[in-house]
Every structure is written in C-alpha cells, then in structure tokens.
C-alpha cells in the first residue's frame, strides 16, 4: 500500500494543520459572538504570519517591517470606507489621482493588494541585487516601519492622523456602512481566505520554486553556481508575501472595524516576528500556531488581569520579551520545529538501522 505509506510519512505538522482547521471550522458553533469576533482577528493575523513565514522561514529574508505591507493594505480599505461614507473628517471633494482606485469597492480591494505589492517591489528591486548584506534588508525594512508610522500620522488629510479611521462596513467588497455581515458570517469569510492562503503557501513551498527559496536561505551563493539567479526569486516571494500581508491587513481592518498607525509601525512588525519565532519558522504550522497561542493568551489573560492592573498590556510585553529569549535559547526552531526535529530523528534512526541491516546482509553473503 504505497499510498498509505505516504500518509504515514506525512510530516506531523500537517496533521496539526488539519486539526487546527477543523477546530476553526467548528469554533463559532460552541463560542459566543465576542470570541468569534476575536478569533476572526486572530485568523487575519494568521494570514499575516504565513506571509512572513514564506519570506523569513523559507527564504531567510527577515523582514523587520512587514507591518508596512499589512498596514498599507488595511489603510486602503480604511480610506475607501471613510470616503464612501463621507466621514466627518474628510475635507476633500474628490479623491486625489493616487487614490482614485478607491472610489469603487472592487478598486479598493485591488488597491489593498497592489500597494503592498508595489512597496515590496520597489524595496526588493534595490535590495535584492548586487552584494547587499542580508542583514541590511532587515535594517531597511525596520527603518521603513518606523517612518511609515510617522507618515500615516503626518498625512492626516487622508489617514485621520493619530486617531485612525473607523470602518463600519463589514463585507468583502462594499465599503458602504449600510452593508454589513454578522460576526459569524464574516468569520467564515476570513476562514475561507485563511484556508486559501494556507493552501497557496503549501503548494508553493512544495514546488521547485519553494525548494529554490529554501536554497537561498541555506546557501545563496551555491545556488548561483548552479545557474540560478536568486534576485528574481527573492523579488517574487517578497511581492507575493507583501500582497498576502496586504490581504491580511484588509481583512483585519474589516474585522476590527478600525485602523490606526499601530497597525503599520514597528510594534506590529516585531510582534509578528515573535509569533513566528515562537511557533517555529519554515513549516507554516508554526506561524499559525504561534499566532493563535500568543494572541489568544493575550486576549484571555487581558480579560482576567485587566481588573487587577491597568498596566496589563505592558506586563504582557515584558512576558513576550522573556518568552522570546527563552525560545531563542531553548528551542530556536520554535514549538513546531521541535516536533519536526523529533520526527526527523526517529525516522533517521529507522533508516540508519535499515542501512546497517543491509551492510550486515551483504557481508554475510560474501564474507
């Protein structure tokens, strides 16, 4: 039964993925609206974490400003919605040419994917050619996140500055207030996008392109001497990852009903790194599980401790810092990475035993 053998050899984490999606599918049936709403937001963050995992976990490009791509997608929907509903802070009679796409619902949807893609394209074109050190990519993206946050605060004409934008429509395309899906309904919209994103990632990392990306992570110069041009692959994955982050941002804004500068700045950029690092990078499952565990715990603990201390959020950050240090020290491959290492070492042991047996047989036949 070769097919059955294939199923048995499936990496452990794919079973976790399956269980996770079944859990998410059933979640609204036994949870109240508040938690359905919370979980919708977490699922949008999961898409965001997946997009970073493609870039960081698989390709080794540690973007420290991935929130810029998330937030720029989110802001497109925010501005489109504010315009469609003529929010009271809107002081212009006509959308400027660079935001013209936002006048139609479908245009806003496209803009939320295209703008992050374009930002990634621009950064990538400069950073992925020549002999620029990998760490400079991290530093430039970090600087970008810092500046993007200042930028949206500064551009209050379009972004409502410090206060951010309230988005009351909760549909996939329409930005009008009157149209609104229930929390439950929108939960399944987000879940569908999460499943789609996950399947896309799963397909991609198993293609030859996915292997080339891992090759870039492992040993970029070796790849060059095999005839590959890594820059094209890096650009491709950065743009794809950026668009996926934009999608996550768009969904998140619709779930949460608002967006402000914290969704585009360094805070979120580093938070997503922590999720992926804790869950384990380079296997997709880690990104999903890390996000779920940490975001769920934060919400849950917040509801418990907020009565005791008003500074819960600050203590939580402290805990995250300690947790991150602990993870880097004890299990640098993250929670799921440990599991996969365990499976790999067991399989290696079996294979080694088989090789030994073969040697014995051969020498037994002709001593």
């Amino acid at each position, binding site marked *: 039964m070769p097919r059955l053998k294939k199923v048995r050899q499936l990496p452990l984490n794919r079973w976790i993925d399956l269980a996770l999606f079944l859990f998410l599918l059933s979640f609204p049936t036994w949870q109240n609206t508040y938690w359905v709403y919370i979980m919708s937001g977490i699922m949008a963050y999961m898409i965001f974490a997946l997009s970073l995992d493609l870039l960081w976990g698989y390709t080794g490009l540690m973007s420290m400003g991935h929130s810029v791509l998330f937030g720029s997608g989110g802001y497109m929907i925010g501005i489109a919605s504010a315009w469609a509903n003529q929010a009271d802070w809107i002081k212009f009679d006509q959308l400027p040419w660079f935001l013209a796409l936002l006048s139609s619902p479908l245009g806003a949807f496209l803009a939320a994917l295209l703008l992050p893609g374009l930002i990634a394209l621009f950064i990538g074109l400069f950073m992925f050619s020549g002999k620029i050190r990998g760490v*400079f990519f991290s*530093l430039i993206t970090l600087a970008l996140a*810092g500046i993007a946050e200042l930028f949206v605060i*500064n551009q209050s004409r379009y972004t409502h500055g410090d206060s951010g934008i309230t988005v009351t429509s909760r549909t996939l395309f329409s930005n009008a207030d009157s149209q609104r899906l229930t929390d439950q309904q929108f939960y399944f919209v987000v879940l569908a996008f999460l499943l789609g994103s996950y399947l896309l990632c799963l397909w991609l990392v198993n293609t030859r392109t996915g292997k080339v990306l891992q090759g870039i992570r492992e040993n970029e110069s070796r790849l060059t001497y095999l005839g590959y041009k890594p820059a094209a692959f890096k650009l491709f994955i950065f743009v794809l990852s950026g668009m996926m982050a934009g999608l996550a941002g768009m969904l998140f804004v619709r779930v949460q009903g608002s967006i402000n500068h914290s969704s585009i700045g360094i805070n979120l950029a580093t938070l997503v790194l922590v999720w992926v690092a804790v869950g384990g990078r380079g296997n997709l499952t880690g990104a999903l599980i890390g996000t779920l565990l940490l975001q769920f715990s934060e919400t849950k603990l917040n509801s418990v401790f907020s009565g005791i201390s008003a500074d819960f959020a600050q203590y939580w950050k402290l805990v995250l810092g300690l947790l991150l240090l602990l993870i880097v020290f004890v299990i640098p491959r993250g929670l799921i990475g440990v599991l996969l290492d365990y499976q790999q070492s067991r399989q290696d042991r079996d294979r080694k035993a088989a090789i030994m047996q073969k040697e014995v047989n051969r020498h037994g036949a002709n001593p």
Partner: protein
Amino acid sequence: MSPSMLLQLLVSGLASSFVLLLTSLGLVIILGYMKVVNLAHTEMLMSGAFICYYVYQAAGLPFIVALLTAFAVSFLFGALVERLIICHFYGKMSETLLATYAISILLKQGALLLLGKNYKKVDYPVKAVFQWGSVYLESYKLVVAGLSVGVLLLTLLLIYKTKTGRMIRAAMQNRSMTESLGINTKKVDTLTFAYGMGLAGLAGAVIAPLSTVTYTLGESWLTNTFMNVVMGGVSSLFGTLASSVLIQESVSVISGLSNSVTAQIIVLLVVIVVVRLKPDGLFTAKERR
C-alpha cells in the same frame, strides 16, 4: 528660503550630525567587529539618558560624573549580556536579532514599569547660546560635537594603537587563526560588545539634555541610527561620520522646506539608493578576498 535661514538649517544640521554620529558609534562597532546587529542599542541610549537624569538632575552630581556612570553601567550591562546571551549566537543572524530584540523589550518595559510614563527634563550643563548674525547655536551642541569627535578619535586610537585593538582586528580578520595564536577571542568579544554598549549608554547620557527623557526615547532614535549604519557601512568609522553628516544635513534642510516626516522618507530613499550603489558603505576599505 532666505540665505540666513538656510545657513541656520545647515549649522543645526551639522550639530545634529555629531549627535547622530555619537548615537550610532556603538552600533557600528558591534556590527562591524562582531557581525551582530544590536537591536537593544537604542534602548541602551534610553537607559543612559535615565542614568544621566538621576545622577545629574536628581542627585545634583557633576555632569561628567553622569556621563562616566552611564558609560560604566552600560559597559557592565553589555559585558553581562554578551557573556550570558549573545555569545551563544555568533554567526546566527536571526537568533541574534531576536535575542537583542528581547533584551530591548526588557529594557524598555522595565523602564516603563519601574520609572513610569512621566517625562523627565534634564537641564543643559552649559547654557550659553552663540550668535553669529542671524545664526544661533547652543553652546551645549558644541560640547556634544567635541565629545562626539573625541569619542570617535579615542575609539580609533583604541582599535589601531592598543594591544586589545589589534586583537579585535585580528579576531575580525581570521578568528581561528587568532585563536590558534593563543589569543582569547572570547574576552575580545566581551570587551567589544561591552564597549559598544558603553558608548550607547554614554551617548544616551549626552543627548539627555537635548530630548525629553522617557521610556520611548529609544524608539525615536531607532530609524535614524539604523539608517545611518546601513548608509555608512561598517568597514570604516569615517563612513559613519560622512553618513551622519549627509543624513542630518538632508533632514535639517528638507525639514525646513517641508516637514520632518517628508525629510525622513527622502533620506530613507537616498539610503536605499546609496546602499545599492555602494553596498559596503560610503568609505570602503578594499580587502583581499
């Protein structure tokens, strides 16, 4: 823009350049000599500024004592962090970034929870303001420029003229060879990291009178110091000097014309283009490969 205003912008820009140079030096040294990006750098600045506040402003001790305390405390903290944490992750980029980021969270949240959200103000140790025609310059900024150049020269002296400096350069060139010569590269690493952190603390104390001292002070320096390192490169400290001047003069002049955010965006674009053209920094020491 009137010529006198432009002159004023250029003068303040130049003064800020030396501030940026001082605040970036520790970062450049740690990155250049140890290949470690120290994300805790700007939080060390913040801690240095707090030390300055407590020693100079609150306790009323001389300013120089505050500077030395900030350097000493940060140096020791750096040595501790290197021995306990960083030394386990050499050569692993993601891990060092995550570990130093974790340290930065601990420093920042620690400051917030222990010292509160209140803004603290540190007085100028020298208060005179110079005036040439319509151009003004606070005398303290001159002091900072002097300190900044002094620290740069002292660092170069340490690296090129002392035995420890030679060991640092040797360890940088060829680690295993240096080790086989019986040099304790571990000690060299600890000293280098501690020195870099010490400079960050010192810089924090120096900038305390120029800014409001609060737990978010580190964050506000993050973008500029990191852009500075990317543009200046790590192969020469003169690259850092040049890039500091270039960044701050541009920020100053463009801010005068438009606003500081636009200035930062333009500077970031310039940094991206420069790093594309000169990936090893503005001043490249040619090396044999």
